[in-house]
């Protein structure tokens, strides 16, 4: 019993230490927001790495997300709800939920893990110490551009994902389910609320920031050579994914 309590105490202490570390890093990154214009070359470089290079995978995920949504919606509503609502159902599911969450999970794997691996490898080879010894703040130089690039690029990627997902859904509906495109789009204007897109974009922004923040935090804390870098990569992906799902729930209860 005593051992269990001691272990629980240690776990609690470690949880608050980690959470505190993440918030301190976030605070430092926010402090460097004023330097963003001066550091624009680093920011643009990261926008290319986070955003542009992720477009193909996000589009691929988007098209299949839309296609499977249309197919599953058809399966669930067939016989109960008029088929003209299929387009609306798919559209709402993609814009509000599937687009932001699936894109964020893919980015957590592609970008978050790569940030953790890159910074982790720099940490274990003393490159971060070298940066600091050159009087360059490592949070400003490494973490801030990655964080702001993720926050900026994630909503743009989600717009791409949403668009291509709806095309995927439309293709499935027209080519495989035999639903005319006019029927597919017929109910969308009646129930289209701009807030849905806005909420999806806010989610994307928060998911992007979370992924980069966790990647940077875990990268900076890496220890133990190549094995440590590998561990950090996995931890970053797992923690980002969990936080994305938790924040998704919290934001859903706030927004809708």
């Amino acid at each position: 019993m005593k051992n269990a309590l001691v272990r629980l105490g240690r776990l609690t202490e470690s949880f608050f230490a980690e959470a505190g570390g993440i918030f301190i890093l976030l605070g430092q990154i926010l402090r460097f927001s004023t330097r963003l214009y001066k550091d624009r070359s680093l920011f643009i470089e990261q926008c290319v790495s986070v955003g542009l290079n992720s477009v193909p995978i996000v589009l691929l995920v988007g098209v299949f997300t839309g296609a499977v949504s249309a197919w599953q919606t058809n399966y669930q509503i067939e016989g109960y709800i008029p088929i003209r609502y299929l387009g609306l159902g798919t559209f709402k599911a993609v814009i509000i939920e599937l687009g932001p969450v699936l894109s964020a999970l893919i980015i957590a794997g592609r970008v978050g893990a790569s940030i953790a691996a890159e910074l982790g490898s720099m940490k274990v080879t003393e490159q971060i110490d070298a940066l600091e010894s050159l009087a360059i703040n490592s949070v400003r130089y490494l973490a801030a551009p990655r964080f702001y690039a993720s926050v900026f690029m994630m909503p743009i990627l989600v717009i791409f994902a949403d668009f291509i997902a709806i095309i995927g859904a439309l293709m499935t509906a027209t080519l495989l389910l035999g639903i005319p495109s006019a029927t597919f789009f017929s109910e969308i204007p009646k129930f289209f609320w701009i807030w849905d897109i806005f909420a999806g974009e806010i989610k994307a922004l928060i998911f992007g920031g979370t992924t980069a923040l966790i990647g940077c935090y875990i990268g900076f804390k890496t220890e133990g050579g190549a094995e440590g870098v590998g561990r950090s990569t996995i931890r970053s992906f797992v923690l980002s994914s969990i936080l994305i799902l938790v924040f998704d729930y919290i934001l859903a209860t706030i927004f809708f």
Partner: protein
Amino acid sequence: MIEISDLTKSFNDKPVLRGVNLSIKSGESVVIIGRSGCGKSVLLKMMTMLLPPDSGRILIDGEDITLMDDQNLYRVRRKIGVLFQGAALFDSMTVQENITLGLREHTDLSETELRRIAEERLELVSLPGILDLKPAELSGGMKKRVGLARAIAMDPKYVLYDEPTTGLDPISADAINNLIISLNEKLKVTTIVVTHDMVSANKIADRIIMLHRGVNFFEGTPEQVKNAEDEVVRQFIEGKADGPIKQVIVKEQPREWWRGKRF
């Protein structure tokens, strides 16, 4: 001038440094020796506050860097060049970008000017014509030289070397030793070298300081160290496994990087 007083550092409640006191004069060439895990590299990192001490004072030109805010600390760091054990070159950058990164961040020099300075520094370390190579294309010895060129790029007053000859063949190691001596003379810098390579220590040092049991155990010229009668010093310089030095090695633990940071 660097003055260190009563410096202590523990990792996981295991003391590594128990009260180090040092005074290093400008222009001096000091070599810190001691067996692996005795806290030499920890001490070197503390001289630039890459690792904060538990207690004690570190005065660089009369300013206590342990009490400084980030802005002042970065100002002092610009006076110090560091050559890391594995050179710690930035993988994603070319040799030129590595050497000029500090200047690019802290000055408004043009690209032509930066290239000229990088070429000059490379010539000083006897490695001209490799500006556009990436670190992956360099040998171990070349990496150390480029690391050194980067360390001296901002005309530092102090140059710190962490195990500069470790991992090099004897000829390359001797070339690095000669380079350290020649830079010390040409640039009039204060040189602080951490090593357990006695050949290197004897060649470079004006003064050798031996760390043992967390304190500066012995100090003297290379000649005085060679003739020391103390058993601990003799065991170390003669490289004998049997003798009074038998303590457990305490490895440096990673610091919690957020400690001491402000936002």
